[in-house]
């Protein structure tokens, strides 16, 4: 069992910031490996019920990545970006851009994973920045918004 996540949302000049903290009952090395090793990542990446048929993921600074999550009905949700910080076993950071037809399908956002050892357990802090604000969220075309909401509903 893992502890419930704590969530914070702020706004800065670049857009909205989402922060989620979660404590895992696993060592920092194991949690980092689950993020850095593509074979391990593919085993959990994607919400429950979804598979990860495309997992082009090899963390190296400046390297690109792309993954596609597939729903049970076969619909794919692809996201990709570039690694911006790779510092095992405490930090992994990358840009994050959903592929899609809507005007915000190509919004370049950024994700940082910070890990901290807590006596054999691991605290993970996920910081997703440069998220579109409410105004741009309102402007999302139906395609992008609804596919993202579909995805959220499967969780």
């Amino acid at each position: 069992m893992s502890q419930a996540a704590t969530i914070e949302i702020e706004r800065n000049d670049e857009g909205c910031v989402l922060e989620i903290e979660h404590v895992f009952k696993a060592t920092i090395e194991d949690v980092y490996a689950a993020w850095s090793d593509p074979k391990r990542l593919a085993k959990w990446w994607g919400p429950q019920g979804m598979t990860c048929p495309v997992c082009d993921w090899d963390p190296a600074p400046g390297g690109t990545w792309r993954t596609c999550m597939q729903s049970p009905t076969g619909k794919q949700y692809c996201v990709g970006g570039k690694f911006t910080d790779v510092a095992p076993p405490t930090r992994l950071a990358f840009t994050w851009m959903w592929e899609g037809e809507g005007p915000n399908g190509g919004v370049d956002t950024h994700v940082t994973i910070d890990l901290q050892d807590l006596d054999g357990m691991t605290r993970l802090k996920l910081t997703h920045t440069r998220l579109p604000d409410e105004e741009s969220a309102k402007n999302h075309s139906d395609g992008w918004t609804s596919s993202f909401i579909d995805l959220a509903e499967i969780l």
Partner: protein
Amino acid sequence: MVKYSASEADSTLDLTFQALADPTRRAILGRLAEGEATAGELAAPFEMSLPAVSKHLKVLEKAGFLIRARDGRVHRCNLDAGPMQAASDWISTYRNFWEGQLGSLARYLETEQKKKKEEDKKNEPSSND
């Protein structure tokens, strides 16, 4: 539909979060969700002066949560859930996504831990050789 002026639109989300950041204001919104109320009725549950409550109402009004109608000297307040909906819709998609992802990661790590323990058990007899 919520109507904003152009300058307000830029900081709508700021105002929404600012308005929601206070427990008194959240309680006022909770009361308004049940139906129309006067400023006096909204103030009643709180140990607070009417001017103090009035300040909270102004914050809510600015964020677009509250619509006031004057009825003589009485202000009737109504809830407009528009800003809340916009904020929660936006937040829930990203939040649900990452919560789901971290949930998957937690399940994966638990499975790996179990595998490790089973392997350790298997290795125990051989280590006694």
